[in-house]
């Protein structure tokens, strides 16, 4: 009925569509696996289970909570309602200081303990990460 060319074109379109759908799904799947959610200590307190996914926690570094030795820095993140113990070995940003805003990225051991592999801060001291401000504001 149709010419060879039309048929070929049809096959091509089908293959193309399938490819697009497949890529979309892969992209979404990878996206879902690789996003890092942001939580405040209080939100962590409300979690029903501890997932093994990476999270970011934001809040203030509690006063007098920073303890340092050769390999580790331990401190407490607080949102003035709940607290979270953080242990971290790695580089701290320039603006890491007690009673300043901080974001720690890592894995939860339980609701009170985070093993961080990254500490983030912004380049401006006037600045507080928006998520932190949000969790403090709530």
């Amino acid at each position, binding site marked *: 009925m149709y010419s060879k060319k039309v048929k070929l074109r049809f096959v091509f379109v089908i293959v193309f569509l399938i490819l697009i759908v497949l890529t979309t799904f892969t*992209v979404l799947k990878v996206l879902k696996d690789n*996003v890092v959610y*942001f939580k405040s200590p209080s939100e962590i307190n409300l979690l029903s289970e501890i997932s093994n996914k990476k999270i970011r926690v934001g809040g203030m570094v509690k006063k007098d909570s920073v303890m340092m030795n*050769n390999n580790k*820095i331990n401190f407490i993140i607080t949102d003035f309602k709940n607290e979270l113990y953080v242990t971290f070995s790695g*580089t701290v940003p*320039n603006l890491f200081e007690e009673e300043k805003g901080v974001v720690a990225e890592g894995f939860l051991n339980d609701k009170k303990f985070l093993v961080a592999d990254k500490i983030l801060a912004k380049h401006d001291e006037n*600045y507080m990460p928006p998520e932190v401000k949000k969790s403090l504001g709530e």
Partner: protein
Amino acid sequence: MIISQLGYYSLIFGLLTSIFIFLNSSIQLKKNILVISDKSIGLIGFQFFFVFISFISLIFSFIISDFSNETVYNNSHTTKPLFYKITGTWGNHEGSLLLWLLVLTGVLLGFVFKSRNEPNNYRLLTILFHQITVIGFFIFVLKTSNPFNAIFPVQMEGLGLNPILQDPALGIHPPILYLGYVGTSIIFSAALASMISNYVNKSWAKNIKFWILFSWIFLTGGILLGSIWAYYELGWGGFWFWDPVENVSLMPWLSLTALLHCIVTLEKRELFKKWTIVLCIITFALSMVGTFLVRSGILNSVHTFANDPSRGIYILTFILVLVLLSFVIFVIYENKNFTQKSEIFTLSKETAVLINNWFILYFLSVVLIGTIYPIFLDVILDEQISVGPPFYNKLILPFLIPFVLFMSIGPSMKWIKTNFKFGAKSFFVIIFTLILSFITVYYIGEKNIFILLLFIGFFYLLLKSLDQFREKTKNFAQIFSHTGFSLLLISILLNSFSSREIVKNIQVGESFTLKNEKIIFKKIAIEKEKNYESVVGFFEILDDKNTIINLQPEIRIYNEPEMATSEASIKTTLFKDRFITINIIKDQNFFNVRYQHKPFMIWIWISTLIIMLGGMFAIFRKNKEVNI
């Protein structure tokens, strides 16, 4: 004071000139007077001149620290070195938009001169469309971000420039990047004009190719400078973080690269007409979205305080208007002039370009999704997330292998139809690739088969590109940029797989080891400079041959505004960078020290320069037959 006034009125005159040019060219088109007289070229020159005067007066206000100007007051300080007073001009919102406007009017002037042999209705239409963008930006600057606002009473001292921006690479980064970004605007205007004037053909391609190359080279350079800055200033030793602000400059680069390949095909074979036009529009839209995302404060960038949402909404609406306009024009004129040859898939250069475009488009979509998905999720579901490097790595790396394979064989294909001969030479190249890859993988101790495949692909591209040097008709543009690209990929891969680092909290006098090297923290010293004080750590590195390398990382405490930055100390050799940073935490005796081995860092910069060199070859050899 008077200088600011001069700058301000010059801007207003600029706007008036733009409106006049806009009206004038519409009338000419309507009455079908298709000439571009010296007078109208003069007007475009004047328009540029006015913006130029305005820009110079802003620079001058910065140099003499005229604190009656709000922009100067907010972003400068008398103790700042002259160089940073000047770069401070475009280190802020208002100034950078003025720079944007300067480039925008500058490229139009350049276009008018460079297109003297083109049909006049095409030129007039390009001027007309370009004026829409120009007027939009004039109004944006004057209405929401006037760089010449006066404050009274005049202040004695300014508030200073963010110390993190006081850096030579970042000083010249914005102008270079903007030349790239804004260069795409003329491509956009010309694409719309060519569609309406039915001029999407070989000579149009030849004409616009210069501007594509122009934007592409500067954008590449801008991205390079940004990466270099991130490498030594942010103190992590990384050069690319998949940070939204970086992605925003990568996206137009990707679509420009695709466009560059298309335009050559259009020039040679009159193919991909529609697609080329679409790419022109996409490229410009991405550049605009980039400005929007960085300037509006939706993304968290270095620029922080009090972002006024009205600015963002203005740019956003403006982008929408421009995109809709081009969309409508595209739909109307799509059928009228695209008599296209049917595209049949054969083994040819056209097909290779098409496949290259698909891949690039895929990479572009991945970056786009990763960048805007968090914004969408935040608005729709009120969840704050961030998309990390694994997302990009997983989705981009596997596809790089087929991509580089096509890139390797594409250039040796012929237009229309290629007969592949698989001779002894190809066999030799493959064997050589395999040997090189196995040695490399063995050397860095990676057992992953996927890594091996990546290396095979990258080395194959490198050897195939180098192989072309032996051909009779050499195309240096293509050879250089492809060689540079393969070198870049290889260096990045080597860098990411054999970087070593150690982080320790130590006191003065203590030491630690990384591989065979001993790192000794000798002492600290406090030094005073004009605009900062610094704590310098003196480190000695003893390598396995007992040679001593001295590194002196610093922590700088700037005075205006008060802020600490850490300056990495880097020892560069041909194969390895040694990178050290220190940090202090208030009220603690320990210094937080990070020491890294970063192999092949310098090759990442060099290979990017080679890529740019390729682009320059294409510009300067444009009269000769150029293939891709």
